[in-house]
């Protein structure tokens, strides 16, 4: 049963991309456990605003776990200590009375901090722009049922496609690797006949862009999949490796 709890929140504060960051600890009294984690941060911010202090800047939008905007590293876990959810779906019932909660931004060279807990994930967009698409223009496409696709294949593509681009994979990875993100998109499109045509070029282009942007090298620790809010499977990384190596050996 949800209770009211008193907590301390230890938040990373950083004025700007170049500024030196530090932790700041705030006390919050009488927080209802039915509140979401972001609602708790809202309460904290209301408190800070009332004290004429600078509220904590953080990314958030849909608050239903699908937009991929929220991005907090809570008590050592991207999106906090619960599985298969985003920060906005984390609830205060996961925390105990008197607990000190540490909140950090994603830490990755490719995701520089903009302010406090807000980071710049433009790198993921750049990877997508390098090849995360099927090259078709609007109009002039065949009928949707022209090419049958086996259900298991379509389902596997859907599971890969459920990635929300939040960046938790790179944030969780001790190597700062973005392989799960790239693999999810490469997998989805390599599985489907519509995407297969460009599969080799896509894998090469997206991996090259990922490397260029300063992400680390995957060592298959599996932390990305373990922390992925959408449970995207590590198997996608094997498919990416396969697609990439085949493409390189064909050159």
């Amino acid at each position, binding site marked *: 049963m949800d209770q009211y709890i008193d907590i301390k929140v230890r938040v990373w504060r950083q004025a700007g991309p170049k500024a030196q960051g530090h932790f700041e600890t705030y006390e919050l009294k009488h927080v209802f456990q039915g509140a979401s984690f972001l609602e708790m941060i809202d309460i904290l911010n209301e408190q800070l605003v009332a004290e004429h202090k600078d509220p904590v800047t953080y990314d958030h939008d849909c608050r239903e776990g699908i937009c991929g905007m929220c991005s907090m590293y809570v*008590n*050592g876990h991207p999106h906090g200590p619960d599985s298969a959810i985003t920060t906005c779906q984390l609830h205060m019932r996961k925390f105990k009375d008197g607990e000190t909660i540490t909140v950090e931004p994603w830490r990755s060279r490719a995701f520089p901090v903009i302010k406090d807990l807000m980071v710049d994930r433009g790198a993921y967009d750049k990877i997508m722009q390098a090849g995360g698409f099927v090259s078709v223009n609007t109009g002039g496409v065949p009928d949707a049922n022209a090419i049958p696709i086996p259900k298991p294949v379509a389902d596997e593509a859907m599971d890969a496609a459920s990635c929300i681009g939040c960046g938790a994979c790179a944030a969780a990875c001790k190597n700062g690797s973005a392989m799960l993100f790239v693999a999810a998109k490469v997998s989805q499109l390599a599985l489907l006949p519509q995407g297969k045509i460009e599969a080799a070029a896509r894998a090469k282009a997206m991996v090259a862009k990922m490397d260029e942007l300063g992400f680390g090298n995957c060592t298959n*620790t599996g932390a990305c999949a373990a922390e992925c809010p959408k449970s995207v499977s590590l198997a996608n990384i094997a498919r990416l*490796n396969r697609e990439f*190596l085949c493409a390189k050996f064909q050159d």
Partner: protein
Amino acid sequence: MWLKDSSIGRKFVMSISGLALVLFLIFHGCMNLAVVFSEDAYNMICHLLGANWYALIGTIGLAFLVLVHFCYAIYLTIQNRAARGNDRYAVTGKKEGVDWASENMLVLGFCVLGFLVLHLYNFWFKMQFAEITGIETGAFDPQNGAAYVKALFTEPVWGQIYCALYLIWLAALWLHLNHGVWSALHTLGWNNLVWMKRIKVIGCIIASLAIAPFAIVVLYYLGMGIAML
């Protein structure tokens, strides 16, 4: 060159060199196992792999593989640390389903390497190297390796310490391989949703197969040494 410039290329090199070393380990371990059954057989194998040209080429190849594997590991690790950025996490939680070994492959690698130096000094230097160069290491007759192994491992106290050190080494190596083998297969693209669990089991079996012969030999002499005390 994509084997150096692309992340998957670098991982490919690690996988191939790693898997080749695993194959060598299995081969090496099986040879060692012979000593348990017949010292003569063991000496014969030692003779076959002594100062022959193919053994020399093999040795140079192995050294090259180790060097590549080591250099790439250092290179990858430097890059990976840089990828985290300037500030590191203040709190890092335990992630479910993530092997400790998988996050500490470099540490395990260094453990393996450290013992490897000891091992090379103890055996390779005094066996193959001595035979090639003909220098006098003063230890034993290069033609009777079995006797030397037995002497080293069963010598009171020091022999048992050696055995213990070797067992620690083998444990580190097993952890390294338990992640390394399936990870290498995964990096080569030999994995999918269905095979994910199987590949990990296969990796574990191969790691165990590679380590078991060594461990059996060490335990065999450990037992013998304790009995002789």
